[in-house]
C-alpha cells in the first residue's frame, strides 16, 4: 500500500516527515484517534481506526468506529479502514467522475470481505468485528464519499460549510448500521464527487461537536469548525504538524466530558484553494 498510514492506537498521529505533508502539495491530511474515557475506565482499547493512502493527486481516507458490543471491534475497524483505502487505490487508474460511485462501492465490498474473512479465521461471527465505515476518495479537488452508520463528514467550499454526509443512526440512539450486516448495500450512502477546499471526517465521538440538530436536521457547528480549520491551515502553511494538536483537543477534558466515546477526527486541506496561505 503506497504511502499508507493506519492508525489504531491511542493518541495516534501521522509521523512527522510523512509524504503526505512534506512532499505532496496537492492535498494535506492530518488527524488523530483518541481513546474515550469510557474505554480508559474499562481498560478496553480504542475501537476507532483510520487509514490514509495515496500519492500525487489521488488519496483515499477511511474512518471506522468499532461497535461497542463487538468483542473484536478494534480489529474489525482497523481491517476495514486499511482494506478500504488499499482497494480504492489498487483499482483506480484513470477513474472518471461517473465511476467514483463504483470505486467507493468496490472499496466497501473489499473491506467487508476482509472483515468477514478475519472473523472466519478467528472462528467468530462477523458481528464480533462490527464497525461503521466512512470512505473518502479525493481527486482533482473533489471528494467522493461512501458512508455506513454514524459519524459525519463536513465539507468547506469557498468559506461555506456543508454537511456532506450525516450520521445514520436508525431510530434509536444506541443503534447504527454496520459494515458486516447482510444488508450493508442498503445502508451504504454514496455522496457524489463534491468540490472541497477543506473536509472533516469524524466518528460519532466528535460528531456532536461538528454538527448540531435544528428542526431535526444536522447543521455544521461553526464555532467549533471554523477555529479548528483556521488553526490547522495556518499550522500546515507554516510547515508545522497539527496531528498532536488534534490529538490534544480530542483528549482534552472538555471533549472527554462532551463524549465518553473514542474520537477520530481527520482533516483534508486542499492547499490550492484561494483562502489558504499557500493557495
Amino acid at each position, binding site marked *: 500500500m503506497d504511502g499508507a498510514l493506519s492508525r489504531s492506537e491511542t493518541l495516534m498521529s501521522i509521523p512527522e516527515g510523512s509524504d503526505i505533508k512534506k512532499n505532496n502539495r496537492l492535498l494535506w491530511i492530518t488527524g488523530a484517534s483518541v481513546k474515550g474515557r*469510557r474505554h480508559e475506565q474499562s481498560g478496553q482499547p480504542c475501537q476507532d481506526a483510520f487509514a490514509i493512502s495515496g500519492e500525487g493527486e489521488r488519496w483515499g481516507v477511511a474512518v471506522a468506529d468499532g*461497535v*461497542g*458490543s*463487538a468483542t473484536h471491534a478494534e480489529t474489525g475497524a482497523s481491517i476495514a479502514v486499511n482494506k478500504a483505502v488499499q482497494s480504492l487505490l489498487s483499482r483506480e487508474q484513470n477513474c472518471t467522475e461517473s465511476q467514483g460511485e463504483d470505486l467507493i462501492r468496490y472499496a466497501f465490498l473489499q473491506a467487508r470481505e476482509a472483515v468477514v474473512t478475519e472473523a472466519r479465521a478467528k472462528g467468530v461471527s462477523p458481528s464480533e468485528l*462490527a464497525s461503521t465505515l466512512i470512505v473518502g476518495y479525493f481527486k482533482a479537488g473533489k471528494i467522493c464519499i461512501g458512508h455506513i452508520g*454514524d459519524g459525519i463528514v463536513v465539507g468547506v467550499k469557498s468559506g461555506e460549510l456543508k454537511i456532506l454526509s450525516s450520521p445514520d*443512526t436508525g*431510530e*434509536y*440512539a*444506541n*443503534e*447504527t448500521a*454496520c459494515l458486516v450486516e447482510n444488508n450493508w448495500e442498503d445502508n451504504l450512502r454514496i455522496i457524489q464527487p463534491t468540490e472541497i477546499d477543506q473536509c472533516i471526517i469524524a466518528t*460519532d465521538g466528535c460528531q*456532536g*461537536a461538528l454538527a*448540531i*440538530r*435544528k*428542526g*431535526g*436536521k444536522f447543521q455544521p*457547528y461553526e*464555532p*467549533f469548525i471554523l*477555529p*479548528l480549520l*483556521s*488553526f490547522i491551515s*495556518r499550522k500546515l502553511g507554516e510547515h508545522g504538524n497539527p496531528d498532536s*494538536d*488534534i490529538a*490534544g*483537543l480530542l483528549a*482534552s477534558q*472538555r*471533549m472527554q*466530558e*462532551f*463524549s465518553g*466515546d473514542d474520537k477520530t477526527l481527520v482533516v483534508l486541506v486542499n492547499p490550492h484553494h484561494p483562502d489558504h496561505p499557500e493557495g
Partner: protein
Amino acid sequence: MDSDTLEQLVDIPYPQHPHCATVLVLDTSASMKGSKIAELNEGLKILADELVHDDLAAKRIDLAIITFGRSVEVIQPFTGIIQFEPPELEAGGYTPMGAAILEAASLIEKRKAEYRETGVDYYRPWIFLITDGQPTDMSRGDTRWQEVTGVIHSGEADRKFLFWALGVDQANMSILRELSPPNRTPLQLREAQWSEMFLWLSRSLAKISDSRIGEQINLENPTGPDGWGVVPL
C-alpha cells in the same frame, strides 16, 4: 496563536443527550390499600433519589406515571428526573389495566414524535407495569383484550418499546404472562422486596441511559437468590 491550544480556540457545544422515555403503569386499585400503596409510594421516592444521583440517568431519563384505579390517569406527564417529584398515590376503585396500557403506548408515541420534532436523539422507550391483581376492563379474548395484547406484542416486535410486567402479592401471573411479549416472562415480587425492585429499576434505567451503539443491554437478573423477583411457573 502559538500560545493558544485548539482546545482554547474551539467552542464545544452543550452535549445533546439522548433521552429515554420510561412509563410506569401503576395499579392503584382498592386492593393496593394499606401497606402496598405505602410501599409503592416509598419505592417511587427511592427511584427518584437513586436516579437523581446518577449523572447520565438524571439527564437522559424522561419519566411518566400512569395510574389505574378509580380511573386511568396520567398522574405524571413526561418529566426529567431532576424535576420529578414523587407523587403520593392513593388506592381505590377497580383495575382498568387495559386502558392504562393503551394510554402508555399512546403516550410513548407522542413523546417520540416530540423528540423527532425537536431533533432529540432517543433510546427505545420502556413500559413497566406493576399490578397486584388482574384487569377489570377486559377479559381474555374480548375486543379490548385483543387490542391491548396486540399493542404490546406488536410494539415489542416492531421495536417501538420494551414492556415489562411485574406482579405483586395476588397478581394474576397467568394473565400477565399472556399480556407480556412472548419472549418476556413477567416477574413476581417476593414479599417485602419493594425497595429492592425499585433499586433494580433505577439501576436498569441507569444502565440503559448509559448504553452505547450496538450494546446489548443485560439487565441484572432479579430472580437470583438475592433478587427481588421470581419467575412464576
